[in-house]
């Protein structure tokens, strides 16, 4: 039995949960802890936090956030963004993260993967790849939250990351991020066929059909999503007085006109997987929750 993991992604800027399109135009959606708790209670299999700015100021607030999260949320938590050294990694693990996601620092210095895997174990090290399709059809890896080209071919890089000791690949399409157009199946498939470590598909989920598609046709081992969950949560359950002045509801109304994201909940996502004969963890009703 192999169970697909459903992994909400929370992009974090300072104390806030943000979301953009193509990793740009970030808007504040609310407090990450509120969303994280909701996703945990609704059956998320893991969570991933990405610090999209990774400034020195943001770092301390991120560590606090990890600590708070790990005190009340008992599923694996991956943290990425701005981790440059083994010491940086140690700090987020000490705060309560289970795994780290490395992108920019790993491309600039691939031996960081090896050093970190040796120290903390491969299963702790996720290499995060942000990919953009070139006119030639080849995929290029980007760093610095999608801002910098590297000239590095995505499939080659994924293989190298595996060789250096990465335990998983988190693979995101910048072209699809926030658009709701569906995962980039070709991208996901090209990497999942090239490596034997798990590949987490990210970027583009906008409706339920996209999930079974990327698992069946892209060979994804796990699925990650952001807007589809965040928008649904805000629309249905959430009003955070602290953020009312940020105009995020207006933002949502606006963004719905330009993207194809239809909101969904984690149970809806999991039911859609089960309907497509894809195994995943479901929370059983019972008296164990005492």
């Amino acid at each position: 039995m192999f169970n697909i993991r459903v992994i909400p992604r929370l992009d974090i800027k300072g104390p806030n949960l943000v979301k953009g399109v193509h990793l740009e135009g970030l808007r504040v959606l609310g407090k990450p802890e509120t969303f994280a708790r909701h996703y945990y209670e609704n059956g998320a299999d893991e969570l991933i936090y990405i610090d999209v700015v990774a400034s020195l100021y943001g770092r301390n607030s991120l560590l606090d956030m990890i600590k708070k999260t790990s005190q009340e949320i008992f599923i694996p938590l991956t943290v990425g963004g701005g981790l440059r050294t083994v010491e940086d990694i140690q700090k987020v693990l000490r705060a309560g993260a289970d795994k780290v996601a490395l992108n920019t620092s790993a491309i600039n210095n691939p031996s960081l993967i090896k050093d970190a895997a040796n120290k903390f174990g491969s299963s702790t090290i996720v290499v995060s790849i942000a990919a953009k399709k070139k006119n030639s059809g080849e995929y290029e890896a980007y760093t610095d939250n999608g801002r910098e080209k590297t000239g590095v071919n995505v499939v080659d890089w994924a293989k190298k990351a595996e060789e250096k000791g990465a335990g998983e690949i988190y693979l995101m399409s910048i072209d699809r991020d926030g658009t709701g157009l569906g995962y980039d199946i070709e991208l996901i498939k090209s990497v999942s066929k090239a490596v034997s470590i798990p590949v987490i598909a990210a970027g583009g989920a906008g409706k339920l059909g996209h999930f079974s598609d990327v698992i069946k046709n892209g060979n994804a081992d796990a699925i990650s999503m952001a807007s589809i969950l965040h928008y649904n949560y805000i629309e249905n359950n959430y009003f955070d007085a602290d953020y009312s002045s940020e105009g995020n509801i207006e933002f949502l109304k606006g963004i719905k006109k330009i993207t194809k994201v239809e909101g969904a909940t984690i149970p809806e996502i999991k039911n859609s997987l089960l309907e497509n004969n894809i195994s995943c963890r479901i929370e059983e009703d019972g008296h164990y929750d005492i």
Partner: protein
Amino acid sequence: MISEPQKFSVAIVDMGMGNLFSIKQACSYVGLDGFLTSSQEEINNADAIILPGMGAFGDAMDTLESLSLVDVLKKSANSKKPILGICLGMQILMTYGTEFGHRAGLNLIEGHVERFQNPSDGGIPLKVPQNGWNRIDKVPGLSDSWKGTILENLPDGMFMYFNHSYYVTPKLSDGIIATTRYGNYKFCSAFQKGNLIGLQCHPERSGKAGITVYRNFIGIIEQYNRTKNNNRI
């Protein structure tokens, strides 16, 4: 803690690997005083011990040897103090490991540790490590219930979080309490033999079901303390 004397102390043995902090948080969530330590004295004084661990069998044994903890742990096991081994911590309770040749473990449970060799599900290859959620199943033929065990109150087939390449093969006639299927493999995912408990999954990362496991551990520590106090009288 002086202010809260009813809290049991749990020594989480720090072997330098993995996320010990989530174990500590899970302890504190259920009201256990879990603390990270590699001190012989602190381990001896604790009400219970958790052996955590991610990483390699040999590295873990090297660390325990260099900290002179092997005998401390064996003595604790003999004193009936509850010891919960999680993942690699379960594996090092066994006689030996097989990563890079045979390597002696703590030898508290007879049996050894094996690696998944090309696991597959209906001809489709599965990945190693097994990284994700899988079911723990009651063992047929033995007790119908997990009552009195570390898995009490969990429904049969509960999903727990796993992250491992190796599994244990304990030679226990009545201590294996749960098995798990990974493709063509069926392995022991939980055993409980007296005061020695092993879990291949990570309860501290297994949501509410995992928290139930930590609550059950309190009950097991209470029982140990009652016996200990009765013996004293």
